C-alpha cells in the first residue's frame, strides 16, 4: 500500500482539521458576533464541509474498496459512506446554527471549530482499525460534545445536562479504556487485524477470558454513546436539558460514528463473536426498544419523548450489527441515514418552535400548530411519521431493509418484537400530530409567536425532508450507493 494513497484518503479530514484550526486562530481577532468576520465563519465552515465532501468523493475513485486491514485507519468505502453521512449532518447543523446561536446569544466562532473537530473524531472512529485510534476518536468526539453541551453557560438545565453527560461519558471512557487494556493484555496488540489473527490461534484459556472481558467493556464504551439500555440513563436528561439544535446534532452524528465503529469492530473483525454476542445484543436490542418505546408513551416534553425514541431506534439498529450476512453494513447505513435525517429534522423544527431558551417543548405547546404554521406542522408530521416507519418515508425504507436483513439471518422473534414495538411507538409519535392538527389553539396562555423561519433553518430542514422523501419514495439511488459500500466487506 502506497503511503501517498493513505494520506490522500485522509484529505477530507485534513481539510476539516485545518479549517477548524484556522477558525480557532481566527476568532480571537474578531469582536463577537457583530463582527463581519464572524459572520463569515458559518459560510466558511459550510464551505469546508462541502469541500471535504467533494474531496471524499474525489479520493474515493482511487481507493481500494476492501478494508486495508493492516492500517490503523482504513479509508475504504465503508468509512467513506459513513463519513459522507457525518459530513452531511455537520453541514445541516452548520446551516441552521447561526440563527440558533444568535437567538440564544451564544454565537461564537469556536462553535464551528468544535463542529469540525468533532467531525474529525467521528471520521476517525468510522475508519479506525486500531483500538488506540478508536479511543482517540471517541475522546475527541466526547470532549467536543462536552463543550458543545456546556456552551450555554447561563442555563442551569443545560449545565446539568452537560455535567451528567460529562461524568457518565467519562466513566464509559474509563470502561472502554479498561477494555482496551485487557485486550492488549491478552493479545499484545491493539490493531484489529492482529487481534483477529491472534484470536484464531489462541488456546490459552486465561487470555481468552481476558479478551472476552475486554471486548465486553469496549462494547460498553460504544454502547454508551448509542444510549443502548442499560447505558441509556443519560439520554433523556441530556436531550431535555441541552438546546435543541445541539441535541439535533447530538442525537445523530455521534451515533453514526459509534455505530460505524461497532460495525467495523464486531461485524468485520470479530464475526465469531456472533453467537454469544449476538445473543446478548438481542437482549440489549429488545430491552432498548421496549424501554425506549414504553417510557416515551407518557412523556409530555417532546424532546424527552424523542430522547426515548432514539433509545428505541438504537435498539432497532443494533440488530444490524449482529447480522451475519453481506447486507449488514448496507442495512446499517440506510437506517442511520434515515434516522439521522428524521431526527435532525424533528429537532430542528422543535428548536424553531421552542423559542429562546427552549421553553416551549411540551405537547401542549404544539396544540393547534397546524392552524398557525401549516408548513412547519406538516414537516414535523413528516419526520414523526418517518420515525414511526410509515411508508413513503425514509423511516419505512430503513425499517423494511433492517427487518428484511434480520429475517434473512433468522431473527424472526426479534423482528416480531421490533415490529410490535413499532406499533407501540406509533402511539406516541402520533401524539404531537394529534396536538398539532386535532386540538384547538390553546386560549391561555397564548402560545409564543413563532418567528419567520430563518433561511438557514429552512435549508437545513428542507435538506432533511428531502432526504427522507427521497429515501422513502425512490430509495434505489441510496440503496445502490450503500451497496457499493457492501463490496468493502467481501
Amino acid at each position: 500500500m502506497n503511503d501517498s494513497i493513505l494520506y490522500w484518503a485522509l484529505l477530507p479530514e485534513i481539510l476539516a482539521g485545518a479549517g477548524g484550526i484556522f477558525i480557532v486562530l481566527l476568532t480571537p481577532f474578531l469582536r463577537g458576533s457583530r463582527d463581519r468576520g464572524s459572520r463569515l465563519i458559518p459560510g466558511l465552515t459550510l464551505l469546508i464541509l462541502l469541500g471535504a465532501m467533494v474531496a471524499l468523493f474525489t479520493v474515493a475513485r482511487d481507493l481500494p474498496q476492501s478494508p486495508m486491514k493492516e492500517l490503523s485507519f482504513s479509508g475504504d468505502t465503508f468509512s467513506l459512506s459513513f463519513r459522507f453521512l457525518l459530513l452531511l449532518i455537520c453541514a445541516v447543523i452548520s446551516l441552521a446554527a447561526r440563527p440558533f446561536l444568535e437567538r440564544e446569544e451564544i454565537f461564537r466562532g469556536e462553535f464551528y471549530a468544535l463542529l469540525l473537530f468533532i467531525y474529525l473524531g467521528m471520521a476517525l472512529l468510522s475508519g479506525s482499525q486500531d483500538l488506540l485510534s478508536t479511543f482517540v476518536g471517541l475522546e475527541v468526539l466526547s470532549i467536543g460534545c462536552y463543550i458543545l453541551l456546556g456552551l450555554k453557560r447561563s442555563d442551569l438545565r443545560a449545565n446539568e445536562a452537560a455535567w451528567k453527560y460529562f461524568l457518565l461519558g467519562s466513566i464509559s471512557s474509563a470502561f472502554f479504556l479498561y477494555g482496551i487494556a485487557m485486550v492488549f493484555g491478552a493479545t499484545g496488540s491493539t490493531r484489529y487485524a492482529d487481534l483477529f489473527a491472534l484470536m484464531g490461534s489462541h488456546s490459552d484459556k486465561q487470555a481468552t477470558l481476558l479478551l472476552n472481558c475486554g471486548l465486553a467493556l469496549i462494547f460498553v464504551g460504544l454502547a454508551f454513546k448509542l444510549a443502548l439500555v442499560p447505558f441509556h440513563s443519560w439520554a433523556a436528561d441530556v436531550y431535555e436539558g441541552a438546546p435543541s439544535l445541539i441535541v439535533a446534532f447530538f442525537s445523530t452524528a455521534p451515533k453514526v460514528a459509534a455505530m460505524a465503529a461497532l460495525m467495523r469492530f464486531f461485524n468485520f473483525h470479530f464475526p465469531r463473536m456472533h453467537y454469544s454476542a449476538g445473543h446478548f445484543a438481542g437482549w440489549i436490542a429488545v430491552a432498548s426498544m421496549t424501554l425506549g418505546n414504553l417510557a416515551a408513551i407518557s412523556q409530555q416534553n417532546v424532546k424527552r419523548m424523542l430522547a426515548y425514541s432514539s433509545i428505541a431506534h438504537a435498539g432497532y439498529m443494533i440488530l444490524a450489527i449482529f447480522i451475519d450476512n453481506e447486507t449488514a453494513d448496507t442495512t446499517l447505513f440506510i437506517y442511520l441515514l434515515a434516522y439521522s435525517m428524521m431526527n435532525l429534522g424533528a429537532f430542528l423544527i422543535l428548536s424553531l418552535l421552542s423559542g429562546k431558551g427552549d421553553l416551549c417543548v411540551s405537547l401542549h405547546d404544539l396544540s393547534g400548530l397546524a392552524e398557525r404554521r401549516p408548513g412547519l406542522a406538516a414537516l414535523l408530521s413528516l419526520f414523526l411519521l418517518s420515525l414511526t416507519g410509515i411508508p413513503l418515508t425514509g423511516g419505512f425504507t430503513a425499517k423494511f431493509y433492517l427487518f428484511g436483513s434480520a429475517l434473512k439471518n433468522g431473527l424472526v422473534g426479534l423482528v416480531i418484537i421490533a415490529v410490535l414495538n413499532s406499533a407501540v411507538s406509533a402511539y406516541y409519535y402520533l401524539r404531537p400530530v394529534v396536538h398539532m392538527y386535532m386540538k384547538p389553539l390553546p386560549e391561555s396562555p397564548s402560545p409564543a409567536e413563532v418567528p419567520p423561519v430563518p433561511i438557514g433553518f429552512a435549508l437545513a430542514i428542507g435538506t432533511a425532508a428531502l432526504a427522507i422523501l427521497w429515501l422513502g419514495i425512490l430509495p434505489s439511488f441510496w440503496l445502490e450507493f450503500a451497496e457499493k459500500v457492501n463490496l468493502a466487506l467481501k
Partner: protein
Amino acid sequence: MTVPIIYYLGLSALLFALGSVGLLLKRNLLVQFMCVELMLNAANLAFVAFSQGRADGSVIVFIVMAVAAAEAGVGLALVVVLFRNRNSLDSEDFRLMKG
C-alpha cells in the same frame, strides 16, 4: 526482580472499583470528578502492567494521559460553571430533569 503482573492488575481493578463506588456514594461534584479520574488512571495502570517490556504499551499510556488531561480541563470548567450558577457542589442539587 519483577513484580508479577497480577498484582498490578489487582491494584488497577481495586482502583477502578474504588472509583466507581466513590461515584455512587459521593455527592460532591469535585469528588465525583476525582473518582472518574481514578477510574481512568486505574485503566492506565492496567495498560502499564500489560505493556511490561513493550514500548508501544507505554506510548499508549502517554496518549491516554494526554486525553485524560483534556477531559479534566473540560470537566473542571463545567464544575466551575455549575458552582457559579447554583452556588452548590452537591450533585443532588442538580436534579432538574428526571422521569
